[in-house]
């Protein structure tokens, strides 16, 4: 590799593996340990290292290798349990790997949570200093940035008030402001951006983007938020069951990620293996399932939900995404219906969407079932909705999606002198 001579990687991850002993998760008690010892003695198994390769073992990461060059912003994506947080914890020195090495050629600050170490009884000012020091800043560094931090958080008036009197928004803003003013060479960020109001999130995303592009800092960003990864990251690494399954420019890795999620979701729907979303079908008004629909057609989505336990506040959504992955349309029980219902056993849900205003293309459909604020099941890319051309305006001109966009407005021109 010729590039290596120019810039050495700032992070080198080589054959990184981490195993957890399933039996060792959760604090042990002396009693457990004694009974384990007893078992060992009784069955004559030695207490040596080869004891570790039992079925209890779970590999959170296996042979993970990748490089990050100075100034790059790299996204780590993957489903829950793919090993993202384990990787994050090893890079941040919170835990140690089982084998493999990590070389870090710069100071690291990691942000796995905002407001780590905030004490409710201390004032905003005191917490800024404490939190800054926990994140690795010296007192002098914090002092020099103090005014900037307070201004960024917009809490000037309350800076000498104990943070337990803060609103949750103020608390989060102050906590993030401290973190945003860290100046390490390598910044590792977890999904902490999913906090605060939308405006503040934008500000944080902007700050992060700014950190990377202006100051040439290296950022590792772990997220489910595919839009954020796409917007911020030059490159992405996709983890699947502890293994790197794709790595490269973020657009193609994200496409791979969605494809994987989609295959998984389709599999579940075909085999009826999903826990709650048993079937999902797309019909026209004549109850047929054509391969594609015309612009302006009426479309019926039919879902069969199931839950063994009673779900008291269910909400179910069908989300339509553009070929690029942007969310275009949401059909949601809380929005179009907004009345109390419950889910117990099986339930069939139908929604009719009239005069579909989508332009020609293939659209990704995600399905999600929630119970109030907890996610019960999400199927990303459960189906594809194909739309073909129709002369909806009777003008004889077909709108080119590349030029006219994805939405076909129900509109007519009139002209006067």
């Amino acid at each position: 590799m010729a590039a290596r001579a120019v810039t050495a990687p700032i992070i080198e991850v080589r054959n990184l593996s981490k195993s957890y002993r399933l039996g060792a998760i959760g604090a042990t008690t002396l009693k457990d340990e004694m009974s384990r010892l007893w078992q060992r003695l009784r069955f004559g198994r030695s207490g040596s290292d080869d004891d570790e390769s039992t079925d209890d073992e779970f590999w959170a990461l296996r042979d993970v290798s990748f490089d990050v060059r100075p100034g790059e912003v790299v996204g780590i994506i993957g489903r829950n349990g793919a090993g993202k947080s384990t990787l994050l914890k090893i890079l941040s020195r919170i835990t140690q790997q089982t084998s493999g090495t990590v070389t870090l050629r710069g100071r690291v600050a990691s942000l796995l949570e905002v407001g780590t170490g905030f004490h409710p009884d201390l004032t905003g000012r005191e917490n800024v200093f404490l939190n800054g020091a926990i994140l690795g800043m010296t007192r002098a560094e914090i002092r020099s940035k103090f005014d900037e931090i307070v201004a960024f958080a917009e809490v000037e008036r309350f800076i000498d008030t104990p943070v337990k009197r803060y609103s949750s928004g103020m608390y989060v803003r102050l906590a993030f402001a401290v973190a945003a003013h860290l100046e390490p060479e390598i910044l590792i960020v977890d999904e902490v951006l999913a906090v605060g109001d939308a405006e503040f999130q934008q500000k944080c995303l902007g700050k992060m983007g700014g950190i990377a592009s202006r100051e040439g800092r290296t950022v590792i960003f772990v997220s489910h938020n595919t839009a954020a990864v796409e917007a911020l990251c030059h490159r992405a690494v996709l983890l699947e069951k502890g293994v790197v399954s794709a790595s490269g420019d973020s657009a193609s890795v994200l496409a791979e990620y969605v494809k994987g999620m989609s295959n998984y979701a389709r599999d579940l729907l075909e085999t009826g293996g999903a826990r709650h979303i048993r079937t999902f079908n797309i019909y026209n008004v004549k109850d047929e399932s054509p391969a594609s629909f015309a612009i302006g057609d009426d479309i019926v989505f039919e879902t069969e939900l199931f839950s063994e336990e009673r779900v008291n506040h269910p909400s179910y959504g069908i989300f339509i995404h553009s070929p690029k992955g942007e969310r275009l349309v949401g059909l949601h029980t809380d929005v179009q219906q907004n009345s109390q219902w419950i889910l117990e056993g099986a339930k069939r849900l139908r929604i009719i969407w009239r005069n579909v205003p989508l332009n020609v293309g293939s659209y990704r459909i995600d399905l999600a079932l929630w119970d109030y604020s907890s996610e019960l099941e999400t199927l990303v890319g459960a189906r594809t909705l194909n739309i073909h051309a129709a002369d909806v305006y009777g003008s004889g001109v077909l709108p080119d999606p590349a030029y006219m966009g994805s939405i076909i407005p129900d509109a007519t021109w009139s002209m006067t002198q």
Partner: protein
Amino acid sequence: MSHSPDAPYELILRANASWFDLSLKNLWQYRDLLMLLVRRDFVAKYKQTILGPLWFVLQPLLMTLVFTVIFGQVAGLPTDGLPPMLFYLCGQLGWNYFAQTLTTTSGTLATNAGLFSKVYFPRLVVPLSVSVSNLFTLVIQIGTFAVFFLYLRYAVGMRGFGLDWHVVFLPFLVIHTALLSLGLGLVLSALTAKYRDLTHVMPILVQVWMYASPVIYPLSKIPADWRWLARLNPMTPVIESYRLMLLGAGTVTIADIAASVAIMVLFMIAGLLLFTRTEKTFVDIV
């Protein structure tokens, strides 16, 4: 870009890097954090209390009152000819520091699991901050002791006690107590992270240990045949030394002190070894 590609900074993370991995340089870089944690401890302790920092003075005084009534009046334990008030106050100087530091540091890993699973900094900063913050408490208590000492001596005119020239060694005695409690605290902290049962044992251990130490009775009261047993306890010469230095009455030999120091060194070595080993992966088991 602000980087130079061959930046001198390089950190290699390996699996089980080395058996003993204590970086004093790394610890020194976090000295500001240590002082801020000390401050947090101090402030958090008295916030939302009416009497505030006055509790640092009141708490040993109330204990002294209890000791005077129960052990002095009811049980009639002797006090080496010293005024009971000063005897108990002095006994608590060394003991309270030791007991508080031991209790808090032994829970370091277990109670800070939430913090430690979110951010890296040398874990040793936390138990060290406890040792330092308890030093402030000790200074306040020495101050309280001094007030009573001067009052009884000059206002009331009591005789039979006074500073001994050994008092010049007081700073060493304080450092010794600090390291003794820190070392054992680190050992217990590593064990508590794995075996939560120990959190239930700790209060009992500390309580029993106090009665096994000459806090409420003088060592001179222990029959000569049994004194060797009392001397196995590294806190015995500490408490007796406080009395010798500050009140001029205590039973301490060089051999007792040497034994106590040897145990301290042993605790520190074992503590640092166990703690630095456990801190690396303990977040996996909490």
